[in-house]
């Protein structure tokens, strides 16, 4: 026998797949991961900013919820993020990796501003607002629809395509800003028209609209025939074909919806918040939304929680930056660490480490 006598070194454990665990247990693991991550952040804070861990945590909470103003800001920021997250979700459920929400929202905002800019002084607000909304929806849908048509007809890669469309949208915004500002400053002041009416609080209507949209999205995805078709196409295109679903049609239709909701988000940003547009109006929310949607497992109701959580991290750690006067990269670090733990814990939900029951006790000789 040309058998080698050396043993391969035996690791003390190996990785095996785990039985699907009950929902409460997996949620427990996720919560534990967040707690551990925040503890780690606070320990880090001790070294970096000489704050004690408790102070770190209270500052975070204070930053997000500490005053009525902060609470409204928190609710507003979560809502905008939630709205864009709703937009990407139908596409994601279909396994269509739309990372172009940034551009779709921006182009929607541009359309809304454009309508207000040209028609603002000629028609009443009550007519202007619906026109702005329609323009934003149509343009957002076009922006989402183009990559879908290309994917359906020629099998192009949707990730690259939607990403590229972001840059085109940014370029268009820069162009129109030049066009609209006679001095060439590219800074468009706040429009005096096309403001959403203020009820209760300046952010109230925005929040209500987004929550209503969340309920609608949930019902659409869960209880309608079209929502069912999206799930089937996402799970298996072969099954979809087998039962006669027109996959191309569903692809395009769903991306039109995805883009349209982005358009709504763009309209809301313009009508309720900024009253103007810049190339950074969306500010990366289109990408953060991807995370929100994934963490919520593409369930619109869960997304209320995940968008609030991400906003809490951002706003809370931004407060730390202010209070302790450190670099603004700190919030990013906190978010990075927390997300690392959240995503890492999915490994332990799906797999487990098995330790060897018996380590060898001497060689057996026959």
């Amino acid at each position: 026998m040309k058998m080698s006598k050396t043993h391969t070194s035996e690791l003390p454990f190996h990785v095996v797949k785990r039985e699907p665990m009950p929902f409460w247990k997996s949620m427990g693991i996720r919560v534990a991961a967040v707690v551990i991550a925040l503890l780690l952040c606070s320990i880090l804070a001790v070294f970096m900013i000489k704050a004690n861990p408790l102070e770190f945590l209270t500052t975070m909470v204070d930053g997000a919820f500490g005053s009525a103003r902060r609470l409204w800001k928190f609710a507003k920021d979560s809502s905008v993020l939630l709205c864009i997250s709703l937009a990407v979700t139908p596409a994601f459920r279909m396994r269509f990796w739309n990372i172009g929400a940034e551009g779709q929202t921006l182009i929607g905002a541009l359309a809304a501003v454009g309508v207000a800019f040209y028609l603002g002084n000629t028609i009443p607000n009550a007519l202007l607002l619906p026109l702005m909304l329609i323009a934003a929806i149509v343009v957002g849908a076009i922006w989402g629809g183009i990559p879908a048509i290309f994917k359906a007809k020629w099998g192009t890669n949707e990730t690259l395509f939607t990403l590229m469309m972001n840059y085109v949208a940014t370029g268009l915004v820069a162009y129109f800003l030049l066009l609209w500002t006679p001095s060439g400053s590219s800074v468009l002041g706040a429009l005096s028209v096309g403001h959403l009416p203020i009820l209760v609080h300046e952010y109230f209507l925005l929040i209500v609209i987004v929550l209503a949209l969340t309920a609608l999205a949930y019902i659409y995805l869960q209880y309608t025939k079209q929502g069912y078709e999206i799930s089937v196409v996402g799970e298996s295109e072969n099954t979809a074909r087998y039962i006669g679903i027109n996959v191309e049609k569903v692809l395009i239709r769903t991306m039109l919806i995805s883009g349209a909701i982005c358009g709504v988000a763009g309209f809301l940003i313009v009508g309720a918040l900024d009253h103007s547009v810049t190339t950074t109006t969306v500010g990366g929310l289109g990408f953060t939304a991807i995370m929100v949607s994934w963490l919520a497992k593409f369930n619109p109701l869960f997304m209320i929680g995940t968008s609030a959580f991400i906003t809490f991290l951002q706003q809370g750690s931004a407060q730390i930056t202010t209070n302790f006067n450190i670099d603004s990269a700190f919030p990013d670090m906190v978010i990075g660490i927390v997300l690392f733990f959240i995503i890492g814990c999915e490994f332990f939900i799906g797999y487990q480490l098995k330790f060897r029951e018996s380590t060898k006790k001497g060689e057996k000789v026959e």
Partner: protein
Amino acid sequence: MNKSVALEINNVSKYFGSLAANKNVDLTVYRGEILAILGENGCGKTTLMNMIAGIYYPDSGTISVDGQEVVIRSPKDAFRHGIGMIHQHFKLVDIFTAAENIVLGVNDGKAYSIKEVNRRVAEIADKYGFHIDPKKKIYEMSVSEKQTVEILKVLYRGADILILDEPSAVLTPQETDKLFDVLRRMREDGKSILIITHKLHEVLSISDRVTVLRKGEHIATVDTVSTTSAALTEMMVGKKVELNIERPQPQNVCDRLEIKNLSMVDAEGVKVLDDISFTARSGEILGIAGIAGSGQKELLESIAGLCHPITGEIIYHNPKNGKTEDLRDKDPVAIRELGVRLSFVPEDRLGMGLVGNMDIVDNMMLRSYRKGHSVFVDRKKPGDLAKKIVEELEVSTPNTHTPVRRLSGGNVQKVLVGREIAASPTVLMAAYPVRGLDINSSYTIYGLLTKQKEKGVSVIFVGEDLDVLVELCDRIMVICGGRVTGILDGRNTTKEEIGLLMTKTARDAEETSTAKESADGENV
């Protein structure tokens, strides 16, 4: 014969989650013997072999080779200990030659010389009686030749313990006989051979001893000469089973589906269906036999409207109004709108027939969700249907809201067949409906098909087990390379006759009609 122990497995267990794939299994293999590992699907045969071959790592227990305890963490480790496995799915590079595939990954410190490799491959092939050209490319090879390359790959690396995972699943009876001759020669050369199978007659014809596994546990190891197929079945299943398939005479036979000169090409322009013509009749089961990939899938999918032939007709005779319709180039929705009740149990259950991540109710809905004008889906009727199927077909599941991917193979198939039958079809097509199912579930499925036939349904059954085909079907159509090579009467044929037709090429079909004596024709 000198009976020295080659491989010893001691108290090995392997768990997947809470499921015990193997529980305290002991196994001994001697040099120069063929040991059959017998058991139903899901009994842990393949898991056990994968642990020996280094694919999985046991949770507990030990493996010894030649009396030495060894740790096998990878296929490479396995090879160092002289163990090689031939998997069911071949792992070959299509554009390489046989020899290039065989030498791929071998690091013996010698300078690479393809001439030397060719010579050595030919030498090994010669020694055991393989027929192979080392310079032939894989894509030009038949399935049985590819399998030969896999076996040579293992021998080339110097394996003394060979594990074959259901090697006959892809072979015709004649090819299987040839393979078994080779295996016997290896045994005489002192190799140990473990062969996984669930075909009893193979066990009885090839093995020296049989190990029976059931639900992950070692039930018994017996000498082949002192056992019978009835005894082995009982050990496998755990109770006595009657293995009889009923075949009532077809009643009220009339033409239901007429296929005329159907041809189709695939995306690469290769002809996958070549001038196929046959008639499926109501009240009978038409079996379709052939080596995997001979065009079965394309044929059924063309009928179901999932892919589109270039020429030919698919004529449906509607029993309601006596009208005929050409179904060619219509999609599944259009076919249903014509009032054609066509049910289809595809080969890929979870990838095509069902959605794995959806529960039983939502899977029932696949067929019916379009009904009505509401924009909302109605989950009530599918829910009732799901309950009915779970009850009537004894699907073992916690409830109807369990994702189907969590069900066992047999239960998945019951859900799928149940749904397709619930549509009260006039034509029922089933592709490999019992693949991966245990014996009891398989016979349940055969029973369901026969019941449909008695109801006057035209059943088309694509099968791989020829023993079952000749017992179940009224007529058997054999296809090879996308062509019909014969349509036989199921009551008056033998599996040898079918086997010959399965490898018959177009040229042979024209040249010889009496070439039954040549059993070793290397027809390519």
